[in-house]
C-alpha cells in the first residue's frame, strides 16, 4: 500500500468514524426518549380508514417501544362514545393524552377539560388551541400541490366536481381553502355548484352514485374535467364511476395515499389522476416522540409536519412503491 493510499484509507476511516459518532450522537438523543412508567391515553374517533388505522397503530407501537403503557380508545366513529371515553380518560389521569381526529366542534370543550385537569394534550392531524403540539402533514402544501396538479392536467380550464362534506374537519378545511386559493389564479377552472357531499359510512358507494348522477346530468364529453375530494376514499368511488361511465377524460384527485388509490394512480389506464400520500404511521410515532420530549422537560413546537409525497401518473411507479411496501408490511391491503 502506498503512502498516499494509506492516507486515503486513513481519511476515509476518519470520515467513517466521524459519521458513526454523529450517528451515535443522534441515536443517543433518540434513545434518551423514554416513557418508562408513564401511561399515555390515546383517543381516536375511528379506525375504519387506512390513514386512521395506521396513525393509531403508530402511536401505540411507539409508546410501547419507549416503555410506556397505552390506554387505547377507538370510538368507532361515534361522537357520543368518544366523549364518554375522553370523560373517563380524564378521570384516569394519564400522564398525557394523544387525540386523533374527530369533529372539532364536538371535541373542543372536552379538549379544554383535559387541559383544565392538568393533563398535557397532544393531537394527531387535529389543529386546536388546546393541544401542546399537533403532528400532521403540511396540509397547506398538500392542498396547493394537488390543486395545481389538477389544474395542470386539465390544461387550465374546465369544470370540477368537488366533495365538500367535511369542511368541519380542520385538515379538510385547509385543503379545500387551498384549492379555492389556487383556483383564484385560474378563473377558467370552475367548481360545479352545488358541491357534492362525501359521507361516512358508505363513502365509496355514495361517491360512486353522486358522480354517476353528475356525469349523467352533463353527458357531453369534456363538460366535466376532474373530481376533487379532501381525502381519497371518495376518490375510489369517483374513479370507479368515471370508468363505468366510459368518461375517461375525467381525472380524480384526492389526499391520504390509501394503498388502493396509489395502485389506481399507478395503473396508466385508471382515471385516478393523482393522490397526495401521507405517512400516517410516522405521524402517529412522531406525536408520541413529541409527548415524550415534553414529559422529559424539553421544548416542543406547536406543530410538527411529517413529509408527504405527491404521487401522479408520471412518478407513480417509483414514488408509490415505498408506500405500497409499507402497507404490505403492515398487513393492510
Amino acid at each position, binding site marked *: 500500500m502506498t503512502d498516499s493510499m494509506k492516507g486515503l484509507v486513513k481519511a476515509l476511516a476518519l470520515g467513517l468514524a466521524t459519521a458513526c459518532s454523529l450517528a451515535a450522537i443522534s441515536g443517543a438523543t433518540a434513545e434518551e426518549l423514554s416513557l418508562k412508567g408513564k401511561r399515555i391515553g390515546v383517543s381516536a374517533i375511528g379506525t375504519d380508514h387506512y390513514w386512521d388505522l395506521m396513525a393509531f397503530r403508530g402511536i401505540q407501537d411507539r409508546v410501547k417501544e419507549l416503555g410506556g403503557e397505552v390506554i387505547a380508545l377507538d370510538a*368507532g366513529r361515534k361522537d357520543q362514545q368518544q366523549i364518554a371515553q375522553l370523560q373517563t380518560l380524564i378521570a*384516569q389521569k394519564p400522564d398525557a393524552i394523544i387525540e386523533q381526529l374527530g369533529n372539532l*366542534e364536538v371535541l373542543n370543550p372536552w379538549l379544554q377539560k383535559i387541559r383544565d385537569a392538568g393533563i398535557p394534550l397532544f393531537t394527531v392531524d387535529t389543529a386546536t388551541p388546546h393541544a401542546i403540539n399537533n403532528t400532521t402533514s403540511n396540509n397547506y402544501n398538500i392542498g396547493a400541490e394537488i390543486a395545481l396538479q389538477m389544474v395542470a392536467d386539465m390544461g387550465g380550464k374546465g369544470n370540477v366536481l368537488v366533495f365538500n362534506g367535511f369542511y368541519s374537519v380542520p385538515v379538510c378545511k385547509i385543503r379545500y381553502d387551498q384549492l379555492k386559493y389556487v383556483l383564484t389564479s385560474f378563473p377558467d377552472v370552475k367548481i360545479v355548484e352545488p358541491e357534492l*357531499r362525501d359521507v361516512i359510512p358508505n363513502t365509496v358507494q355514495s361517491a360512486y352514485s353522486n358522480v354517476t348522477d353528475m356525469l349523467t346530468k352533463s353527458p357531453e364529453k369534456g363538460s366535466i374535467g376532474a373530481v376533487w375530494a379532501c381525502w381519497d376514499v371518495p376518490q375510489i368511488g369517483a374513479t370507479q364511476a368515471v370508468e363505468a361511465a366510459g368518461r375517461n377524460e375525467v381525472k380524480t384527485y384526492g389526499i391520504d395515499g390509501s394503498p388502493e388509490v396509489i395502485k389506481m394512480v399507478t395503473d396508466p389506464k385508471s382515471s385516478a389522476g393523482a393522490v397526495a400520500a401521507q405517512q400516517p404511521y410516522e405521524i402517529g410515532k412522531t406525536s408520541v416522540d413529541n409527548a415524550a420530549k415534553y414529559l422529559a422537560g424539553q421544548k416542543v413546537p406547536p406543530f410538527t409536519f411529517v413529509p408527504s409525497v405527491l404521487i401522479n401518473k408520471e412518478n407513480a411507479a417509483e414514488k408509490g412503491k415505498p408506500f405500497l411496501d409499507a402497507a404490505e408490511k403492515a398487513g393492510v391491503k
Partner: protein
Amino acid sequence: MSASVLHTEVAVSDEKQAAAKSAGRRFGALVVRLGAIAAFAAIMAYFVIFAPGFTSTFNLINVVEQSAILGVLAYGMTSVIIGGGSDVTEGGIDLSIAANMGLCAAVYATLLSMGYGDFLSVLAAIAVGMAVGALNALAVVGLGILPLLATLAVLNVAAGMELTLTQNTVVGASSPLLGVLVSGSFLGISALAWALIVFSAIMIVVVHRTSFGLRLYAVGGHPEAARAAGISVPFYVSFTYVLSGFCAAVASILTVSRLSASTPGSGELLLSVLAAALLGTVFSRRFVPTMGGTLLSVLFIGLLANGFQLLNVSSYWVNGVQGALILLVVAITSFARGSEGSR
C-alpha cells in the same frame, strides 16, 4: 267406558304433562334468569375489585352522566314494548327512536343557530319528536302495519329528513339552557346526571305507581282482556309511540348539550337502546319490561364500557359482550314465553 270419558282422561293426562313441562320450563327459566343476574353481579364485583377508580364517586357520577341519553331513549322504547306486548316479532317496538332523536337534535341545533331562543327551539324539537311518534302510531294503530316494519319505515323518513336539514354536517349550537346542562351542578351531581335521575323517577312513578300504568300493562299483556274491561287499546298503544317520540326529543336536547352540536350518526344508538330495553326484562320476575329494570340495564351497559376502559381492556370487547348479553336475554325470554304458551 264411553268415548267421552276416554277423551276426558286423555285430555287430563295431556294437561298434567303440559303442567309438569311448564313447571319444568319455568324452573329452568328461573335458573337462567338468576344466572344472568349473577353474571351481572359477578362482572360488577370484578370491576369493583380490579378496576382502579371504579367505585370513586366522581367516576360513578360520570357513568350516570354518560348513561343519561341512552336512559331517556330506553324509557321510550320500554313504554312501547310494555304497551305493544313484548313479543319480539309482533309486539311493540320503536326502531325509529334513535333516528328521531337525530332529527330533533338537528331541528333544535338549526333553530338555535338561526337565532331563535331556547324556548321556541325546545318547543319545536319536542313537537317534531311527538309528530314522528304520532306517525308511528298512525302506521301501527291506524293502518295496522306490523310495528317492526312501520317503525323501520319511519326510521328512514326521520333519517332522511335529518340529512335534508343538516346536509350531513355538524351543526354547532350554544344557548343558556345548553350552558346549564353542560356545566350546571347541584349537590355535586352534574345537570345531565340530574336529568336522568328526575326523568327516571317520573317514568317509574307513572308506569308503576298509577292506574294508568296498570292499564298500560294490561293492554300490552292481554289486549282482549283489556278491551273487555273497557280500556281503549288503540289509545294506549298510540300513546306509547307518542311518548317514545317525546323521549327522543328530550334525549336530543341532552345530546346537543353533550356534543355542543347536532351531529350525524345518531341512528347508531339504536342497538344500545334495544339492548337496554330487552336486558331490563331479566330484572322482572315475569320477564316483562319495567322502568326500573331498564334503568339498571342502562347503568350496566354504561358501567361495562367504563369498567373495561379502567381495566385497559380493548373497547372492541364492549360490543361483543353487549351482543352476547342480548342473545342471552332473548333466549331467556323466549324460554319463559314457551312456558307461558304451554300453560
